Protein backbone atom coordinates (compact mmCIF):
# COMPACT_ATOMS: atom_id res chain seq x y z
CA UNK A 1 0.00 0.00 0.00
CA UNK A 2 2.76 2.37 1.04
CA UNK A 3 4.81 1.39 -1.97
CA UNK A 4 1.87 1.97 -4.25
CA UNK A 5 1.34 5.43 -2.87
CA UNK A 6 4.98 6.34 -3.28
CA UNK A 7 4.84 5.03 -6.80
CA UNK A 8 1.78 7.13 -7.55
CA UNK A 9 3.44 10.15 -6.00
CA UNK A 10 6.61 9.70 -8.05
CA UNK A 11 4.50 9.21 -11.14
CA UNK A 12 2.80 12.48 -10.46
CA UNK A 13 5.95 14.44 -9.74
CA UNK A 14 7.80 13.31 -12.84
CA UNK A 15 4.74 13.69 -15.09
CA UNK A 16 5.06 10.03 -16.06
CA UNK A 17 1.40 9.71 -17.00
CA UNK A 18 1.66 12.63 -19.34
CA UNK A 19 4.93 11.44 -20.87
CA UNK A 20 3.33 8.05 -21.46
CA UNK A 21 0.51 9.70 -23.35
CA UNK A 22 2.91 11.81 -25.37
CA UNK A 23 4.81 8.66 -26.32
CA UNK A 24 1.64 6.99 -27.59
CA UNK A 25 0.75 9.95 -29.77
CA UNK A 26 4.31 10.15 -31.06
CA UNK A 27 4.15 6.51 -32.13
CA UNK A 28 0.93 7.23 -33.98
CA UNK A 29 2.56 10.24 -35.60
CA UNK A 30 4.96 7.94 -37.40
CA UNK A 31 2.55 5.11 -38.03
CA UNK A 32 0.69 4.38 -41.23
CA UNK A 33 -2.21 6.67 -41.98
CA UNK A 34 -5.63 5.09 -42.23
CA UNK A 35 -7.49 7.65 -44.30
CA UNK A 36 -7.50 7.58 -48.07
CA UNK A 37 -7.41 10.65 -50.34
CA UNK A 38 -10.85 10.01 -51.77
CA UNK A 39 -11.26 11.04 -55.39
CA UNK A 40 -7.79 9.77 -56.31
CA UNK A 41 -8.08 6.52 -54.45
CA UNK A 42 -11.45 4.86 -54.10
CA UNK A 43 -11.94 1.94 -51.78
CA UNK A 44 -13.99 -0.78 -53.44
CA UNK A 45 -17.21 -1.54 -51.60
CA UNK A 46 -17.77 -5.04 -50.35
CA UNK A 47 -19.21 -7.69 -52.64
CA UNK A 48 -22.59 -7.56 -50.93
CA UNK A 49 -22.64 -3.79 -50.80
CA UNK A 50 -26.11 -2.33 -50.99
CA UNK A 51 -25.80 0.45 -53.52
CA UNK A 52 -28.21 1.77 -56.15
CA UNK A 53 -30.88 -0.77 -57.12
CA UNK A 54 -30.74 -2.06 -60.67
CA UNK A 55 -32.85 -4.35 -62.83
CA UNK A 56 -30.92 -7.20 -64.40
CA UNK A 57 -31.19 -9.23 -67.57
CA UNK A 58 -30.45 -12.90 -68.10
CA UNK A 59 -27.57 -14.23 -70.21
CA UNK A 60 -29.49 -13.80 -73.44
CA UNK A 61 -30.20 -10.18 -72.69
CA UNK A 62 -33.83 -10.75 -71.85
CA UNK A 63 -35.13 -8.71 -68.93
CA UNK A 64 -35.77 -10.78 -65.84
CA UNK A 65 -38.51 -8.67 -64.34
CA UNK A 66 -42.00 -10.12 -64.64
CA UNK A 67 -43.83 -7.17 -63.06
CA UNK A 68 -45.14 -9.26 -60.18
CA UNK A 69 -44.92 -6.27 -57.82
CA UNK A 70 -43.53 -8.35 -54.97
CA UNK A 71 -40.92 -5.65 -54.39
CA UNK A 72 -43.58 -2.99 -54.32
CA UNK A 73 -45.46 -4.87 -51.63
CA UNK A 74 -42.37 -5.63 -49.59
CA UNK A 75 -41.02 -2.09 -49.58
CA UNK A 76 -41.44 -0.39 -46.19
CA UNK A 77 -41.07 3.09 -47.64
CA UNK A 78 -43.12 2.70 -50.83
CA UNK A 79 -40.29 3.33 -53.26
CA UNK A 80 -41.78 1.52 -56.22
CA UNK A 81 -44.53 2.19 -58.69
CA UNK A 82 -44.85 -0.65 -61.12
CA UNK A 83 -47.25 -1.38 -63.93
CA UNK A 84 -47.06 -4.45 -66.11
CA UNK A 85 -48.54 -5.64 -69.38
CA UNK A 86 -48.33 -8.85 -71.39
CA UNK A 87 -46.56 -8.22 -74.69
CA UNK A 88 -48.09 -10.01 -77.67
CA UNK A 89 -46.89 -13.55 -78.12
CA UNK A 90 -45.44 -13.73 -74.63
CA UNK A 91 -46.78 -15.62 -71.68
CA UNK A 92 -44.89 -13.50 -69.19
CA UNK A 93 -45.84 -10.12 -67.80
CA UNK A 94 -43.37 -7.35 -68.50
CA UNK A 95 -43.13 -3.99 -66.75
CA UNK A 96 -44.34 -1.02 -68.71
CA UNK A 97 -43.59 1.30 -65.90
CA UNK A 98 -41.01 0.77 -63.19
CA UNK A 99 -40.36 3.83 -61.06
CA UNK A 100 -37.92 3.63 -58.21
CA UNK A 101 -37.54 6.65 -55.98
CA UNK A 102 -34.01 6.99 -54.70
CA UNK A 103 -35.20 9.76 -52.42
CA UNK A 104 -37.35 7.33 -50.44
CA UNK A 105 -35.14 4.25 -50.50
CA UNK A 106 -33.52 3.11 -47.26
CA UNK A 107 -31.51 0.30 -48.87
CA UNK A 108 -32.96 -2.28 -46.51
CA UNK A 109 -32.88 -5.00 -49.15
CA UNK A 110 -36.35 -6.43 -48.64
CA UNK A 111 -37.20 -6.01 -52.35
CA UNK A 112 -34.11 -7.92 -53.39
CA UNK A 113 -34.98 -10.75 -51.03
CA UNK A 114 -38.53 -11.21 -52.25
CA UNK A 115 -37.85 -10.98 -55.99
CA UNK A 116 -38.76 -14.41 -57.46
CA UNK A 117 -36.63 -14.00 -60.59
CA UNK A 118 -33.71 -12.12 -59.02
CA UNK A 119 -34.43 -9.28 -61.43
CA UNK A 120 -33.89 -6.48 -58.96
CA UNK A 121 -30.51 -6.50 -57.25
CA UNK A 122 -28.20 -4.10 -55.59
CA UNK A 123 -25.34 -2.68 -57.58
CA UNK A 124 -22.19 -1.47 -55.90
CA UNK A 125 -22.61 2.14 -56.96
CA UNK A 126 -22.30 4.21 -53.83
CA UNK A 127 -21.94 7.68 -55.36
CA UNK A 128 -25.50 8.85 -55.27
CA UNK A 129 -25.25 12.60 -55.43
CA UNK A 130 -27.20 13.96 -58.34
CA UNK A 131 -27.73 17.44 -59.68
CA UNK A 132 -31.49 17.74 -59.44
CA UNK A 133 -34.47 16.51 -57.55
CA UNK A 134 -35.98 14.87 -60.63
CA UNK A 135 -32.87 12.76 -61.04
CA UNK A 136 -33.85 10.97 -57.86
CA UNK A 137 -36.65 9.26 -59.73
CA UNK A 138 -35.38 6.27 -61.70
CA UNK A 139 -37.65 5.19 -64.54
CA UNK A 140 -37.64 1.85 -66.33
CA UNK A 141 -34.79 2.62 -68.80
CA UNK A 142 -32.67 4.08 -66.00
CA UNK A 143 -32.98 0.89 -64.01
CA UNK A 144 -31.01 -1.16 -66.54
CA UNK A 145 -27.26 -0.99 -66.76
CA UNK A 146 -25.64 -1.83 -70.04
CA UNK A 147 -22.40 -3.47 -71.13
CA UNK A 148 -19.31 -2.89 -69.09
CA UNK A 149 -21.10 -0.94 -66.41
CA UNK A 150 -23.08 -4.04 -65.67
CA UNK A 151 -19.97 -6.09 -65.02
CA UNK A 152 -18.37 -3.39 -62.96
CA UNK A 153 -21.26 -2.99 -60.61
CA UNK A 154 -22.49 -6.54 -60.64
CA UNK A 155 -23.53 -7.54 -57.21
CA UNK A 156 -21.30 -10.36 -56.08
CA UNK A 157 -23.11 -11.60 -53.02
CA UNK A 158 -26.66 -11.99 -54.16
CA UNK A 159 -28.15 -15.45 -54.21
Amino acid sequence: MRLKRTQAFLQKIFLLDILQGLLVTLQHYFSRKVTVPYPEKVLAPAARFRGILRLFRDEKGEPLCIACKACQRACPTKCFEIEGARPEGSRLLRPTRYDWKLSRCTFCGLCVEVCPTAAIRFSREFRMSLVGKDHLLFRLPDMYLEGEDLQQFLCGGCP
Partner: protein
Amino acid sequence: MTALTLLFDVLIPVIKIAAVILFPMVMVIVLIWMERRVVAFIQGRLGPNRVGFQGLLQPIADATKLFFKEDIIPREADRLLFNLSPVLVMISSLLAFAFVPLGGPFDVMGYTIDPWIARSPVGLLLVLGLSAIGVFGIIFGGWASNSKYPLMGALRSVVQVLSYEIPLGLTVLTVVFFSRSMDLVAIVNNQKDAKVWFGFLLPFSFLIFWISGIAETNRAPFDLPEAESELVAGYHTEYSGMKFAFFYIAEYAHMVLVSSLVVLLFFGGWLPPFPNVRALAFLGVLPGFVWYLIKIMFFLYLYIWIRGTLPRYRFDALIKLVWKWLVPLALLNFVIVAVAWYLL
Protein backbone atom coordinates in the same frame (compact mmCIF):
# COMPACT_ATOMS: atom_id res chain seq x y z
CA MET B 1 28.82 57.82 -49.62
CA THR B 2 26.35 60.04 -47.81
CA ALA B 3 23.63 59.03 -50.23
CA LEU B 4 24.26 55.41 -49.41
CA THR B 5 24.20 56.08 -45.69
CA LEU B 6 20.98 57.97 -46.07
CA LEU B 7 19.53 55.10 -48.04
CA PHE B 8 20.51 52.69 -45.34
CA ASP B 9 19.15 54.93 -42.63
CA VAL B 10 15.76 55.17 -44.28
CA LEU B 11 15.47 51.85 -46.03
CA ILE B 12 16.65 49.60 -43.27
CA PRO B 13 14.12 50.70 -40.63
CA VAL B 14 11.35 50.23 -43.19
CA ILE B 15 12.58 46.77 -44.03
CA LYS B 16 12.90 45.97 -40.35
CA ILE B 17 9.36 47.06 -39.61
CA ALA B 18 8.10 45.01 -42.51
CA ALA B 19 10.11 42.03 -41.30
CA VAL B 20 8.80 42.34 -37.78
CA ILE B 21 5.23 42.37 -38.98
CA LEU B 22 5.84 39.67 -41.57
CA PHE B 23 7.69 37.35 -39.23
CA PRO B 24 4.73 36.61 -36.94
CA MET B 25 2.32 36.59 -39.85
CA VAL B 26 4.30 34.07 -41.86
CA MET B 27 4.85 32.04 -38.72
CA VAL B 28 1.11 32.07 -38.03
CA ILE B 29 0.37 30.79 -41.51
CA VAL B 30 2.95 28.06 -41.16
CA LEU B 31 1.71 27.28 -37.68
CA ILE B 32 -1.93 26.91 -38.66
CA TRP B 33 -0.89 24.56 -41.42
CA MET B 34 1.48 22.71 -39.12
CA GLU B 35 -1.11 22.36 -36.40
CA ARG B 36 -3.64 20.81 -38.70
CA ARG B 37 -1.13 18.50 -40.32
CA VAL B 38 0.55 17.40 -37.11
CA VAL B 39 -2.70 16.77 -35.27
CA ALA B 40 -3.91 14.83 -38.29
CA PHE B 41 -0.75 12.74 -38.37
CA ILE B 42 -1.04 12.04 -34.66
CA GLN B 43 -4.58 10.86 -35.23
CA GLY B 44 -3.73 8.67 -38.20
CA ARG B 45 -5.17 11.05 -40.75
CA LEU B 46 -3.53 12.99 -43.56
CA GLY B 47 -4.84 16.47 -42.90
CA PRO B 48 -5.13 19.23 -45.47
CA ASN B 49 -2.84 18.43 -48.39
CA ARG B 50 -4.62 19.84 -51.42
CA VAL B 51 -3.99 23.59 -51.60
CA GLY B 52 -0.41 24.24 -52.59
CA PHE B 53 2.54 22.00 -51.81
CA GLN B 54 1.41 19.60 -49.07
CA GLY B 55 -1.45 21.94 -48.29
CA LEU B 56 0.79 24.82 -47.27
CA LEU B 57 -1.57 27.38 -48.78
CA GLN B 58 -4.55 26.02 -46.86
CA PRO B 59 -4.44 28.78 -44.21
CA ILE B 60 -4.48 31.38 -46.98
CA ALA B 61 -7.48 29.71 -48.56
CA ASP B 62 -9.19 29.68 -45.17
CA ALA B 63 -8.40 33.35 -44.62
CA THR B 64 -9.79 34.19 -48.06
CA LYS B 65 -12.96 32.37 -47.19
CA LEU B 66 -13.26 34.21 -43.89
CA PHE B 67 -12.60 37.49 -45.66
CA PHE B 68 -15.65 37.03 -47.85
CA LYS B 69 -17.92 35.87 -45.09
CA GLU B 70 -20.72 38.01 -43.82
CA ASP B 71 -19.74 40.05 -40.81
CA ILE B 72 -22.48 39.47 -38.29
CA ILE B 73 -22.93 41.73 -35.29
CA PRO B 74 -25.58 40.52 -32.84
CA ARG B 75 -28.42 42.98 -32.43
CA GLU B 76 -27.99 43.29 -28.69
CA ALA B 77 -24.21 43.62 -28.85
CA ASP B 78 -22.26 46.67 -27.76
CA ARG B 79 -21.07 47.68 -31.20
CA LEU B 80 -18.07 49.78 -30.20
CA LEU B 81 -16.50 47.23 -27.91
CA PHE B 82 -17.54 44.38 -30.16
CA ASN B 83 -15.59 45.94 -33.02
CA LEU B 84 -12.75 47.12 -30.85
CA SER B 85 -11.84 43.87 -29.16
CA PRO B 86 -10.44 41.94 -32.14
CA VAL B 87 -8.26 44.94 -32.95
CA LEU B 88 -7.05 45.14 -29.39
CA VAL B 89 -6.16 41.46 -29.29
CA MET B 90 -4.37 41.70 -32.61
CA ILE B 91 -2.43 44.85 -31.73
CA SER B 92 -1.26 43.51 -28.39
CA SER B 93 0.24 40.38 -29.84
CA LEU B 94 1.82 42.10 -32.85
CA LEU B 95 3.18 45.05 -30.88
CA ALA B 96 5.10 42.77 -28.55
CA PHE B 97 7.11 41.54 -31.52
CA ALA B 98 8.67 45.00 -31.84
CA PHE B 99 10.81 44.17 -28.85
CA VAL B 100 11.62 40.62 -29.84
CA PRO B 101 14.96 40.41 -31.61
CA LEU B 102 14.97 38.21 -34.68
CA GLY B 103 18.68 37.44 -34.47
CA GLY B 104 22.09 38.82 -33.59
CA PRO B 105 23.54 41.93 -35.26
CA PHE B 106 25.15 41.24 -38.62
CA ASP B 107 27.10 43.23 -41.20
CA VAL B 108 25.97 44.14 -44.68
CA MET B 109 28.50 46.11 -46.78
CA GLY B 110 30.23 47.41 -43.70
CA TYR B 111 27.02 48.51 -42.14
CA THR B 112 25.89 46.77 -38.96
CA ILE B 113 22.23 45.84 -38.95
CA ASP B 114 20.35 45.05 -35.75
CA PRO B 115 17.39 42.82 -36.57
CA TRP B 116 15.02 44.33 -34.06
CA ILE B 117 12.92 47.48 -34.04
CA ALA B 118 13.46 48.57 -30.48
CA ARG B 119 15.95 47.52 -27.92
CA SER B 120 15.02 48.45 -24.43
CA PRO B 121 16.76 47.75 -21.13
CA VAL B 122 13.41 46.47 -19.89
CA GLY B 123 12.43 44.70 -23.12
CA LEU B 124 11.37 41.57 -21.32
CA LEU B 125 8.90 43.43 -19.13
CA LEU B 126 7.53 45.29 -22.13
CA VAL B 127 6.93 42.11 -24.06
CA LEU B 128 5.15 40.45 -21.15
CA GLY B 129 3.12 43.58 -20.47
CA LEU B 130 2.08 44.12 -24.06
CA SER B 131 1.05 40.55 -24.56
CA ALA B 132 -1.08 40.74 -21.41
CA ILE B 133 -3.05 43.66 -22.81
CA GLY B 134 -4.74 41.17 -25.11
CA VAL B 135 -6.83 40.05 -22.17
CA PHE B 136 -8.74 43.33 -22.44
CA GLY B 137 -9.71 42.40 -25.96
CA ILE B 138 -10.96 39.06 -24.73
CA ILE B 139 -13.05 40.46 -21.89
CA PHE B 140 -14.44 43.23 -24.09
CA GLY B 141 -15.30 40.73 -26.77
CA GLY B 142 -16.95 38.36 -24.33
CA TRP B 143 -18.91 41.09 -22.63
CA ALA B 144 -19.89 43.00 -25.75
CA SER B 145 -21.32 39.88 -27.41
CA ASN B 146 -24.11 40.01 -24.83
CA SER B 147 -24.38 36.27 -24.78
CA LYS B 148 -23.87 33.77 -22.00
CA TYR B 149 -21.30 31.43 -23.45
CA PRO B 150 -18.90 34.18 -24.60
CA LEU B 151 -19.24 35.89 -21.23
CA MET B 152 -18.35 32.73 -19.35
CA GLY B 153 -15.46 32.11 -21.73
CA ALA B 154 -14.18 35.63 -21.23
CA LEU B 155 -14.42 35.42 -17.44
CA ARG B 156 -12.53 32.16 -17.42
CA SER B 157 -9.93 33.58 -19.74
CA VAL B 158 -9.27 36.64 -17.61
CA VAL B 159 -8.91 34.65 -14.41
CA GLN B 160 -6.67 32.17 -16.15
CA VAL B 161 -4.38 34.67 -17.85
CA LEU B 162 -4.01 36.86 -14.78
CA SER B 163 -3.30 33.89 -12.50
CA TYR B 164 -0.67 32.46 -14.76
CA GLU B 165 1.10 35.80 -15.09
CA ILE B 166 2.43 35.31 -11.56
CA PRO B 167 4.49 32.13 -11.99
CA LEU B 168 5.52 33.46 -15.38
CA GLY B 169 6.93 36.62 -13.81
CA LEU B 170 8.58 34.74 -10.99
CA THR B 171 10.44 32.40 -13.31
CA VAL B 172 11.50 35.21 -15.58
CA LEU B 173 13.16 36.81 -12.58
CA THR B 174 15.41 33.78 -12.08
CA VAL B 175 16.71 34.28 -15.60
CA VAL B 176 17.32 37.92 -14.83
CA PHE B 177 19.50 36.84 -11.88
CA PHE B 178 21.92 35.24 -14.27
CA SER B 179 21.77 37.71 -17.08
CA ARG B 180 21.77 40.83 -14.88
CA SER B 181 19.60 42.46 -17.47
CA MET B 182 16.06 42.55 -18.78
CA ASP B 183 17.27 43.32 -22.26
CA LEU B 184 16.46 40.35 -24.48
CA VAL B 185 19.56 40.82 -26.61
CA ALA B 186 21.73 41.00 -23.52
CA ILE B 187 20.13 37.85 -22.15
CA VAL B 188 21.10 35.95 -25.26
CA ASN B 189 24.61 37.43 -25.26
CA ASN B 190 24.97 36.41 -21.64
CA GLN B 191 24.15 32.84 -22.55
CA LYS B 192 26.87 33.05 -25.18
CA ASP B 193 29.39 34.27 -22.63
CA ALA B 194 28.28 31.77 -19.99
CA LYS B 195 28.71 28.98 -22.60
CA VAL B 196 25.57 27.33 -21.27
CA TRP B 197 21.93 28.01 -21.99
CA PHE B 198 19.85 29.07 -19.03
CA GLY B 199 17.36 26.30 -19.73
CA PHE B 200 19.96 23.78 -18.57
CA LEU B 201 20.93 25.87 -15.56
CA LEU B 202 17.32 26.46 -14.56
CA PRO B 203 15.27 23.45 -15.71
CA PHE B 204 12.50 24.12 -13.23
CA SER B 205 12.22 27.71 -14.30
CA PHE B 206 11.89 26.55 -17.87
CA LEU B 207 9.22 23.98 -16.98
CA ILE B 208 7.13 26.43 -15.00
CA PHE B 209 7.53 29.07 -17.68
CA TRP B 210 6.45 26.65 -20.36
CA ILE B 211 3.37 25.42 -18.50
CA SER B 212 2.35 28.98 -17.69
CA GLY B 213 3.03 29.95 -21.28
CA ILE B 214 0.64 27.30 -22.55
CA ALA B 215 -1.98 28.54 -20.11
CA GLU B 216 -1.32 32.16 -21.09
CA THR B 217 -2.07 31.39 -24.71
CA ASN B 218 -5.24 29.45 -23.84
CA ARG B 219 -3.99 26.30 -25.45
CA ALA B 220 -4.76 22.67 -24.64
CA PRO B 221 -4.83 21.32 -21.96
CA PHE B 222 -5.67 24.75 -20.59
CA ASP B 223 -7.98 25.79 -23.42
CA LEU B 224 -10.96 26.30 -21.14
CA PRO B 225 -11.98 29.74 -22.39
CA GLU B 226 -12.76 28.19 -25.73
CA ALA B 227 -13.52 24.67 -24.57
CA GLU B 228 -15.56 23.55 -27.49
CA SER B 229 -17.43 20.79 -25.72
CA GLU B 230 -18.67 23.15 -23.02
CA LEU B 231 -18.63 26.74 -24.17
CA VAL B 232 -19.15 26.24 -27.91
CA ALA B 233 -16.31 28.60 -28.93
CA GLY B 234 -15.78 30.67 -25.80
CA TYR B 235 -15.34 34.39 -26.09
CA HIS B 236 -15.41 34.43 -29.88
CA THR B 237 -18.63 32.43 -30.30
CA GLU B 238 -20.52 35.40 -31.74
CA TYR B 239 -17.77 36.57 -34.05
CA SER B 240 -17.66 35.73 -37.71
CA GLY B 241 -15.66 36.56 -40.79
CA MET B 242 -12.52 38.62 -40.49
CA LYS B 243 -13.10 39.52 -36.84
CA PHE B 244 -13.07 35.88 -35.95
CA ALA B 245 -9.93 35.50 -38.04
CA PHE B 246 -8.33 38.28 -36.00
CA PHE B 247 -8.90 36.38 -32.77
CA TYR B 248 -7.62 33.27 -34.41
CA ILE B 249 -4.49 34.89 -35.81
CA ALA B 250 -3.82 36.70 -32.55
CA GLU B 251 -3.96 33.46 -30.63
CA TYR B 252 -1.46 31.86 -32.94
CA ALA B 253 0.77 34.93 -32.93
CA HIS B 254 0.71 34.72 -29.17
CA MET B 255 1.90 31.15 -29.38
CA VAL B 256 4.77 32.24 -31.61
CA LEU B 257 5.58 34.97 -29.11
CA VAL B 258 5.70 32.60 -26.15
CA SER B 259 7.83 30.16 -28.11
CA SER B 260 10.22 32.98 -29.07
CA LEU B 261 10.46 34.02 -25.44
CA VAL B 262 11.22 30.49 -24.31
CA VAL B 263 13.94 30.24 -26.91
CA LEU B 264 15.40 33.64 -26.06
CA LEU B 265 15.33 33.18 -22.31
CA PHE B 266 16.19 29.54 -21.92
CA PHE B 267 17.61 28.18 -25.13
CA GLY B 268 20.09 30.70 -26.38
CA GLY B 269 18.02 32.52 -28.99
CA TRP B 270 19.93 32.52 -32.25
CA LEU B 271 23.04 30.81 -30.87
CA PRO B 272 23.97 27.52 -32.50
CA PRO B 273 23.98 24.53 -30.16
CA PHE B 274 27.16 23.00 -28.69
CA PRO B 275 29.46 25.98 -29.30
CA ASN B 276 32.25 24.42 -27.25
CA VAL B 277 32.22 20.98 -28.86
CA ARG B 278 34.87 21.14 -31.58
CA ALA B 279 33.47 18.23 -33.58
CA LEU B 280 30.12 19.96 -33.91
CA ALA B 281 31.54 23.32 -34.92
CA PHE B 282 30.02 22.94 -38.38
CA LEU B 283 26.62 23.64 -36.81
CA GLY B 284 27.72 27.28 -36.65
CA VAL B 285 27.66 27.45 -40.43
CA LEU B 286 23.92 27.99 -40.42
CA PRO B 287 23.06 31.62 -39.78
CA GLY B 288 21.72 32.48 -36.35
CA PHE B 289 18.27 33.23 -37.63
CA VAL B 290 17.88 29.68 -38.91
CA TRP B 291 18.79 28.24 -35.52
CA TYR B 292 16.34 30.62 -33.96
CA LEU B 293 13.60 29.41 -36.29
CA ILE B 294 14.41 25.76 -35.71
CA LYS B 295 14.15 26.20 -31.96
CA ILE B 296 10.89 28.13 -32.20
CA MET B 297 9.48 25.47 -34.47
CA PHE B 298 10.38 22.81 -31.95
CA PHE B 299 8.40 24.53 -29.24
CA LEU B 300 5.48 25.15 -31.55
CA TYR B 301 5.52 21.47 -32.38
CA LEU B 302 5.48 20.72 -28.67
CA TYR B 303 2.39 22.89 -28.31
CA ILE B 304 0.57 20.89 -30.96
CA TRP B 305 1.82 17.57 -29.70
CA ILE B 306 0.49 18.32 -26.23
CA ARG B 307 -2.80 19.40 -27.70
CA GLY B 308 -3.10 16.13 -29.57
CA THR B 309 -2.51 14.12 -26.42
CA LEU B 310 -4.09 15.56 -23.33
CA PRO B 311 -7.67 16.02 -22.19
CA ARG B 312 -8.82 19.38 -20.92
CA TYR B 313 -8.55 20.57 -17.34
CA ARG B 314 -11.61 21.60 -15.47
CA PHE B 315 -11.68 25.17 -14.31
CA ASP B 316 -11.26 24.57 -10.60
CA ALA B 317 -8.35 22.23 -11.23
CA LEU B 318 -6.73 24.84 -13.43
CA ILE B 319 -6.86 27.45 -10.70
CA LYS B 320 -5.76 24.90 -8.12
CA LEU B 321 -2.81 24.00 -10.30
CA VAL B 322 -1.58 27.56 -10.52
CA TRP B 323 -2.17 28.70 -6.94
CA LYS B 324 -1.36 25.49 -5.10
CA TRP B 325 1.44 24.18 -7.26
CA LEU B 326 2.94 26.57 -9.74
CA VAL B 327 3.07 29.72 -7.61
CA PRO B 328 4.63 28.01 -4.56
CA LEU B 329 7.00 26.07 -6.79
CA ALA B 330 7.97 29.21 -8.64
CA LEU B 331 8.58 31.00 -5.35
CA LEU B 332 10.65 28.13 -4.04
CA ASN B 333 12.56 28.01 -7.27
CA PHE B 334 13.12 31.73 -7.03
CA VAL B 335 14.47 31.50 -3.48
CA ILE B 336 16.73 28.57 -4.29
CA VAL B 337 18.15 30.28 -7.33
CA ALA B 338 18.65 33.49 -5.35
CA VAL B 339 20.48 31.68 -2.55
CA ALA B 340 22.56 29.72 -5.01
CA TRP B 341 23.42 32.90 -6.85
CA TYR B 342 24.41 34.61 -3.61
CA LEU B 343 26.60 31.72 -2.45
CA LEU B 344 28.37 31.31 -5.77
